[in-house]
């Protein structure tokens, strides 16, 4: 059962081959067994999960069920969930039990899904290796000496290790796609504004977007049907017709125009990654797609632009963590300023502090124009590159990450090296476009490689179709690590 997709689990539940309580207990047992090795979860709460499962089982009795009813879904610990410890990977929120549900959480609750637990993550989603978590690094299930990627590393590891059927992630600069690639699973970052950010702890508000992570594209589509939709509590949420993201899964890819950005296939990409990605492109040609050479000339500026804008927003977003109303407060302090300084000095980790410092600097009087404003201008140019490219192609493909999973501690001393692991993913967030990663083979040390699929705005259904057709033709997505 643990290798089943969401579709299969849903069918089994509806056919009463298994109850939600049995299924939930099965996953909880697996978590109890394997989590000490992987550290993928920060919080599990069997009592709460099983209570939800019992309720789901009564829904099966009454017949009012949806595709995800009764299915345990793990939630990244960035989403506030009522009555659940919600830490965002930080000591700052080590004691924060949320009094309310994030939009994403209530969408899953309403769908009858079970909250299986809160997954580990880089502190405040700042990191590409899951090593910045206050709750310890997550281990890659394919090789526990390696990182799972980040910041949704707990989710990626949990899905890959079959500790859950699917889980949520969030993506500010690649935090869904890069760990999906490094752990050999599928992940989708939707168009900015498609999934409400209400109740999702903010890192960089103009870039943050929640999305599904799972075994395959079909599962992601089912998750999207629950997660997407307008929410009046988020002013950047888009008012659109409700979509069925499964509607195009089975369309043929004949004539699909795949754009390959020259800049992505230049220096920087590992030879093993290149090989797997090129093989995937060849597979797409077999499926009837045509290849278009495109250029994204400004994409090379996306890392520096991102590391101005994201820290700027973060420096302000994280100001609310001041020890006054909730969360960590230093045990001893002499006065107000001292309380702020000690609480924040002790409550935040090094990477978070580094980004707060960068963000504070770029917004400072006298530097704002040179950094923040300039970065915003380049951000527009990066988005325009994509608009131009989509005049020639339907989707863009390339590597998700320049390398496969690296070793724990390998890039710990060099933040810039770490930042470069998001070189292919960041431009997508800056433009607000949807991006995906699906498994497309294995590279050096038998570590998974991810293929990135970038769509035009609101083209998620087409991207899922493109991914699903590939997964019908290949089996990379059904490989599981041996644990």
């Amino acid at each position, binding site marked *: 059962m643990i290798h089943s997709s969401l579709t299969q689990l849903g069918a089994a539940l509806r056919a009463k081959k298994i109850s939600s309580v049995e299924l939930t207990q099965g996953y909880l047992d697996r978590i109890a067994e394997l989590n000490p090795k992987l550290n993928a979860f920060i919080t599990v709460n069997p009592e709460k999960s099983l209570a939800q499962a019992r309720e789901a089982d009564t829904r099966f009795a009454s017949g009012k069920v949806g595709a995800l009813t009764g299915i345990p879904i793990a939630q990244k610990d960035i989403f506030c969930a009522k009555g659940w410890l919600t830490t965002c990977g930080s000591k700052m929120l080590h004691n924060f039990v949320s009094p309310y549900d994030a939009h994403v959480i209530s969408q899953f609750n309403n769908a009858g899904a079970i909250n299986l637990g809160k997954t580990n993550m880089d502190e405040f989603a700042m990191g590409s290796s899951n090593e910045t978590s206050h709750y310890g690094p997550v281990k890659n299930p394919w090789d526990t000496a390696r990182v799972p990627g980040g910041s949704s590393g707990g989710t990626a590891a949990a899905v890959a290790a079959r500790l859950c059927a699917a889980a949520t992630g969030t993506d500010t600069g690649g935090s869904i796609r890069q760990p999906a690639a490094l752990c050999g699973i599928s992940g989708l970052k939707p168009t900015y504004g498609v999934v409400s950010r209400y109740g999702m702890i903010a890192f960089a*508000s103009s870039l943050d977007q929640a999305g599904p992570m799972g075994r395959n594209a079909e599962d992601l589509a089912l998750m999207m049907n629950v997660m997407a939709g307008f929410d*009046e*509590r988020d*002013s950047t949420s888009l008012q659109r017709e409700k979509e069925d993201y499964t509607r195009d899964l089975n369309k043929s890819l004949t004539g699909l125009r795949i754009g390959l950005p020259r800049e992505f296939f230049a220096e920087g990409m590992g030879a093993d990654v290149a090989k797997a990605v090129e093989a995937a492109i060849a597979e797409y040609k077999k499926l009837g797609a045509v290849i278009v050479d495109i250029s994204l000339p400004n994409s090379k500026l996306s890392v520096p632009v991102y590391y101005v804008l994201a820290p700027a927003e973060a420096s302000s977003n994280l*100001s609310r963590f001041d020890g006054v*109303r909730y969360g960590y407060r230093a045990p001893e302090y002499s006065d107000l300023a001292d309380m702020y300084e000690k609480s924040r000095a002790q409550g935040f980790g090094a990477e978070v502090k580094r980004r707060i410092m960068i963000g504070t600097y770029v917004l400072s009087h006298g530097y704002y124009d040179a950094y923040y404003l300039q970065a915003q201008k380049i951000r527009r140019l990066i988005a325009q590159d994509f608009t131009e490219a989509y005049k020639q192609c339907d989707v863009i493909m390339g590597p998700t990450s320049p390398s496969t999973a690296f070793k724990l501690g390998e890039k710990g001393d060099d933040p810039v090296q770490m930042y470069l692991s998001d070189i292919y993913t960041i431009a997508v967030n800056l433009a607000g476009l949807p991006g995906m990663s699906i498994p497309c083979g294995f590279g050096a040390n038998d570590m998974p490689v991810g293929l990135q699929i970038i769509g035009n705005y609101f083209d998620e259904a087409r991207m899922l179709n493109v991914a699903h057709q590939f997964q019908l033709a290949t089996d990379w997505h059904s490989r599981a690590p041996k644990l």
Partner: protein
Amino acid sequence: MTWEIVIGLEVHTQLSTNTKIFSGASTAFGAEPNTQADAVSIALPGVLPVLNRGAVERAIKFGLATGSHIANRSVFARKNYFYPDLPKGYQISQFDLPVVGQGTLTIQVEPLSGNAKPYEKTVRITRAHLEEDAGKSVHGDSQGVTGIDLNRAGTPLLEIVSEPDMSSAAEAVAYAKALHTLVRWIGICDGNMQEGSFRCDVNVSVRKPGAPLGTRREIKNLNSFKFMQQAIDYEVQWQIDTIENGGKVHQATILFNPDTGETRAMRSKEDAHDYRYFPDPDLLPLEISPEWIEQVRATLPELPQAKQTRYVNDLGLSAYDASILTASREMADFFETVLAAVPKDAKLCANWIMGEVSAQLNRDGLDMTQCPITAQQLGGMLQRIADGTISNSGAKEVFRTMWAEGGSADAIIEAKGLKQVSDSGAIEALVDEIIAANADKVAEYRSGKDKLFGFFVGLAMKASKGKANPAQLNDILKKKLEG
């Protein structure tokens, strides 16, 4: 050599919406601490702001009332600083793109020195922007602990900034008063200064005529017109003394102590904050369509200036009367309701309202809204003066009774028998008797001693027990005396 005083004001007006500017929490004053602090007011992790359109409408109203430019696109910005009553660690305000741009407000200045004449002045408004209020720090409970009350956090404010156009305390106070009248007039603010609904910051500097602007100091948070005048007077003298004694004025934020009548520096420019303003990524730019502006314009009442012009041109009132009658919306409404009863006697209405009514209100320490006599009651009485039913002296008695006991003019006239005698036959008989009984005085009168006319009027009035219609009596008496 004299000094020139330069004053500009920043006024924070609390907008009269029922709910906060970025959440649905109530804005009612005086609730138990933190009972009106919802998740957004507390700034829980993950919550997001949603703009209250009612606050925007009030800003548009203000813009229309001051002939200001209303931006079709304005931007909310974050003003970053740490303070315990600022829950997010930033205030959502507007920076370089405010909702209301340049406009003007014409004021009537009553100079403080006895013999100078009142004059009119037009003050330029620089801008008005929307922002949220902070909470309150409640200092010094029994344990010496500072409490935080976030009920006020998120209350909508319109900050109205003037040009430094005022050159005396009298002008500054007149401007503040005119603004206070206007915001209440158009119904965007209750103007309650005790509760902090209308708070003034005053920028003061001095210079020699023709010299460049001096260094300004900002007096914060004045919540009474009296304190404003005292604070400015003290501050101006302090600056002049400082300079004349060879010192220098340094830019600073200062507080006025009403108990000592002195100002004192709170912080200097050196420790001024760098607020690191940047556009709030959680809120879209505020778009105001011409249609929206026209909808708001349709709800705007006739403004004080327009009313004054109409009162002078159409009703024949003096400019002075017109300005008094438009000192508040309540006053003008009262006047117009009274006038509706006697449309041809505007001066009569004005005289009674500015005379007897105002005097009685003053004596009883009441304001217009607490007036025990309704405008309808007064109008009813003025009708009886106009149609000759009662004399002026009779009217005064009706008024006194009405004030103390209530009732309609007609009922009081009836009960007290105050109806004038307008029967010409009865008056003629009465006059004949007096002429017959005072033959000597009649002879004197006829020989040219005109002043005796009053003597005959007095006798006749006395004989009629004050009920004779004075105009009629005059006519008959004159005719008979002239024989």
